[in-house]
């Protein structure tokens, strides 16, 4: 599948990034990308531990870890409220919040934890969001969510929006349903992969000090991408609800 030229000297720098190489597991006849699953489970574990620590000894006056978690939940509540408006936002906080925390955890797990110390037979541990399968799954989930939101609010009348404002726009409106998940998934995938590639290439050129600002940029971009994904998901749901 990969051309021989990429194994020649010119491309050894890039091939170290391990794009397109995976640590395959065979689960019930399906080939899955093991390195992605392991990091996803790690992120889920971290999120679970954080939320248990936050709610274990819930006081009326929050302090310590509960304080931090309440601030985090307030943050995602604000994202949902800004896009969905006062009347609808409550029931969508769990979805928007889960998207935000999961993507944020994935991006930071890739950027902060030195996974390269763990050797794999093939492929490497990295942010799970640098695998297109993860981001496409999240984007499709968003698509289903806004269809569900629209249909549960308006019934079949939801599909009237395809011929609004004029029936001439029907093809464009249908096309939009495909471009939304496409752009959501490509944006997240491309940004995370671009960060990791930049760090890898720069590290192989100059191993010391120089890659540090790019790594900080990666941490920053990871959180911004999580914010954008959840904001856009909320905006699409709001569009289906209005």
């Amino acid at each position: 599948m990969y051309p021989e030229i990429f194994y020649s000297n010119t491309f050894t720098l890039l091939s170290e990034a391990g794009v397109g190489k995976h640590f395959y597991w065979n689960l019930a006849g399906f080939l899955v990308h093991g390195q992605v699953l392991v990091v996803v489970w790690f992120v889920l574990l971290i999120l679970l531990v954080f939320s248990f620590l936050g709610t274990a000894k819930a006081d009326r006056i929050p302090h310590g870890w509960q304080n931090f978690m309440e601030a985090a939940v307030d943050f995602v509540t604000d994202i949902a409220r800004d896009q969905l408006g006062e009347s609808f936002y409550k029931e969508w906080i769990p979805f928007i919040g889960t998207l935000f925390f999961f993507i944020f955890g994935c991006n930071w797990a890739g950027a902060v934890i030195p996974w390269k110390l763990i050797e794999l037979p093939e492929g490497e541990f990295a942010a799970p969001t640098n695998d297109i399968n993860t981001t496409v799954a999240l984007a499709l989930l968003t698509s289903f969510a806004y269809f569900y939101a629209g249909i549960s609010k308006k019934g079949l009348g939801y599909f009237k929006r395809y011929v609004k404002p004029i029936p001439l726009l029907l093809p464009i409106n249908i096309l939009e349903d495909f471009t939304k998940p496409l752009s959501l998934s490509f944006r997240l995938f491309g940004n995370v992969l671009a960060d990791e590639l930049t760090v890898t290439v720069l590290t192989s050129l100059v191993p010391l000090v120089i890659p540090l600002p790019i790594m900080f940029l990666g941490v920053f971009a990871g959180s911004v991408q999580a914010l954008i994904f959840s904001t856009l998901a909320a905006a699409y749901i709001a569009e289906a609800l209005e």
Partner: protein
Amino acid sequence: MDPIVSAASVLAAGLSIGLAAIGPGIGQGTAAGQAVEGIARQPEAENKIRGTLLLCLAFMEALTIYGLVVALALLFANPFS
């Protein structure tokens, strides 16, 4: 792999990311300029402007990222090899 195909792929990868950077570059410049103007006029609205600006910049950056995805597909998962 056909050398012509590999040469064309590498060239196209470079062009796709380079050309995709032009438009968003202009757009981001305009947006940042307007944001600075807005802050200069209304310094108390700085926080709100900064948040919106970051969001808008990331949207524009997404266009370059599409070019990057095409470049990566050409380099690492070339469909014509």
